[in-house]
């Protein structure tokens, strides 16, 4: 007889193994799904996971992986800090939008002036925009005890309206024939977040994402703030005795994740996207939540998870193109990844025993 037994300590080995098992299970069940749709399963899996990296056009798609993964990693790192402490910022999408608006507004204010200071100023305001947007749920929580999950989530929709208003109003391109959308920052050299080396996909946003991984690693491992974050998440009462100021921690965690999301938005709008348009945001802020958990809230894990999710996006498009897979099947496939991770997760906390429970 099979029996579940709670582990006294979460298993370290399983916490590393479960993401791999989840990926493998996703491949198998995803393959079955593709087969049920009448598509060759092995080829589909190969197209999704292999072709973007080593296929005939990998020299194009590999840099694209970085471009797609950059904002996901940057946002997820910020979210993970909060999640570790049990502070749930679900509204990164909104902070991403506001950061993008602020960064772009700075650029458009200086247009068409040339100046080395413009791009750094955009970075500053991008981060600040996201930070301030995240301060709304942070202060409401510390002052009035509101739920940061709800407030931050609802502010996403406010931010979307703000974005539409900006694209239609103050930031609209005066030479755009009345169509909504700002000037294209890609055509404004002082503000353009171009690839640092052409053809590599490495723009400043990707660099920032890598830096954030390293900083988060050091912060969590070596810094007292990292200790506070961990202890608050694992044992909130003990945290009080350890001298953690909960309110301050809420402000710091939400602020940091907001600022990083804002930076991600700013790097995206000044680079790959280029335009303040009504549908600038495509859900990076929400997908980053998956990335954070897939990466076990660990900086290095998040780096890998971000790249993995980017791979499924780009490989998924290739599978659509070459195999006519419906986009919904790809979305199901991505969803499975998180589903299996959470499902397999119980192996970290429980073990399976065969046989009767021994008498106590």
């Amino acid at each position, binding site marked *: 007889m099979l029996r579940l037994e709670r582990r006294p300590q979460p298993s370290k080995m399983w916490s590393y193994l479960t993401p791999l098992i989840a990926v493998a299970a996703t491949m198998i069940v995803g393959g079955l799904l593709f087969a049920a749709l009448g598509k060759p399963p092995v080829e589909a899996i190969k197209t999704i996971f292999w072709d973007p990296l080593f296929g005939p056009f990998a020299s194009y798609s590999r840099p*694209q992986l970085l471009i797609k993964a950059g904002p996901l990693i940057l946002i997820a790192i910020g979210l993970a800090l909060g999640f570790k402490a049990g502070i749930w910022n679900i509204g990164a999408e909104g902070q991403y939008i506001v950061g993008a608006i602020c960064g772009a507004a700075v650029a458009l204010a200086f247009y068409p002036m040339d100046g080395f200071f413009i791009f750094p100023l955009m970075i500053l305001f991008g981060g600040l925009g996201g930070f301030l947007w995240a301060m709304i749920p942070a202060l409401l929580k510390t002052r009035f005890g509101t739920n940061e999950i709800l407030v931050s989530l609802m502010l996403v929709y406010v931010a979307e309206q703000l974005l539409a208003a900006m694209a239609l109003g103050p930031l609209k391109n005066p030479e755009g024939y*009345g169509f*909504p959308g700002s000037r294209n920052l890609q055509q404004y050299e002082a503000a353009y977040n171009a690839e640092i080396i052409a053809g590599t996909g490495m723009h400043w946003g990707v660099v920032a994402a890598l830096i954030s991984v390293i900083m988060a690693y050091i912060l969590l491992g070596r810094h007292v703030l990292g200790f506070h974050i961990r202890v608050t998440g694992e044992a909130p009462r003990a945290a009080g005795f350890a001298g953690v100021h909960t309110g301050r921690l809420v402000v710091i965690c939400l602020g940091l994740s907001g600022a990083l999301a804002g930076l991600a938005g700013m790097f995206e709008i000044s680079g790959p996207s*280029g335009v303040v348009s009504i549908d600038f945001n495509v859900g990076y802020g929400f997908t980053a939540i998956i990335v954070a958990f897939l990466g076990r809230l660990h900086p290095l894990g998040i780096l890998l998870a971000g790249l993995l999710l980017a791979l499924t996006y780009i490989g998924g498009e290739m599978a659509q*193109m070459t195999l006519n897979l419906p986009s919904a099947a790809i979305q199901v496939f991505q969803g499975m990844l998180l589903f299996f991770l959470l499902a397999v997760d119980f192996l970290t906390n429980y073990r399976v025993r065969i046989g009767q429970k021994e008498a106590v």
Partner: protein
Amino acid sequence: MKLTKLLTSAAVALGLAVPAFADEKTKVGFVYVGPVGDGGWTYEHNEGRLAVEEYFGDEVETVYVESVPEGPDAERVMTQMALEGADLIFTTSFGYMDPTINVAAKFPNVKFEHATGYKRADNVSTYSARFYEGRAVQGTIAGRMTKSNIVGYIGSYPIPEVIRGINSAYLHARKVNPDVQFKIIWAFTWFDPAKEADAAKVLIEQGADVILQHTDSTAPQAAAEAAGGVITFGQASDMAEFGPLPRVSSIIDNWAPYYIERTQAVIDGTWTSVDTWDGMDTGMVKIGEISDAVPADVKAEAEAMIAAIASGEYEPFTGPINKQDGSVWLADGETADDGTLAGMNFYVEGLEGTIPQ
């Protein structure tokens, strides 16, 4: 000796190359903003793609990617298509304009066709349909059939294409019913069934008994059906499954002839960059069957208008028409020029509210 060897190997190479070249299919790519199952805009583009496949058979291969967000993702999908050997790529949403231009600059030998935009290049054509001609018919039926005199309109984005539709529908509704009023909700999306349904419900609660939509899903039709006593029109596609009520007619975008013609041009090597804007005359815009829920005299009136527009006898924007602020736009008998229509950013007199900006 050396020369003959060279010639022989060249001949061998040619001999191998020629059949390979002859075998090569023309590859046509499509980038869609919604899912092919949206039952509206993307569905009709996909019908056009299927028509290309059927018409050319083995000569042509088509590929598509659906639900592609307008922005960097679109640029990546187009690049990927071009890399994988597409000869002709149709990008079927307004927001694909800049990405199309960017990718086209990188692939001068690939032809691009962008729907509803205004930026062209040597290898980028634009094409659109005069949907506003269909809106004139819709407005006429709406004006005749509304009992509450309130017509609800779900706008997508406040761009000229959508504003033209609102103006055309309103002018023709008012012509047959001076008391008619339009309530407009901007959804800021092309495809979001939940948002579209909400917009329809709000409009119905505000008393609208006709719902017109410029969004791509069938959700507003379903909302109207659930509410009862409300009529709708199929948008971009026939949406016949919602007939005879609430759907009483529809505007159908018929892209197939254009897609076949342009693919043929690529095969023949005669493709050039053009700006196409066709309407009912060429059949690019069609009116779906008017259901029996519409009284016979109204149906006859609508059909007469369809005939008049298709023959070029009647132009939907014919003066006298004033702008919303009361200033004269078109004098008596004057018709609108394409330039003004293409950039239309104002409401006509009588419409309430402002265009978001």
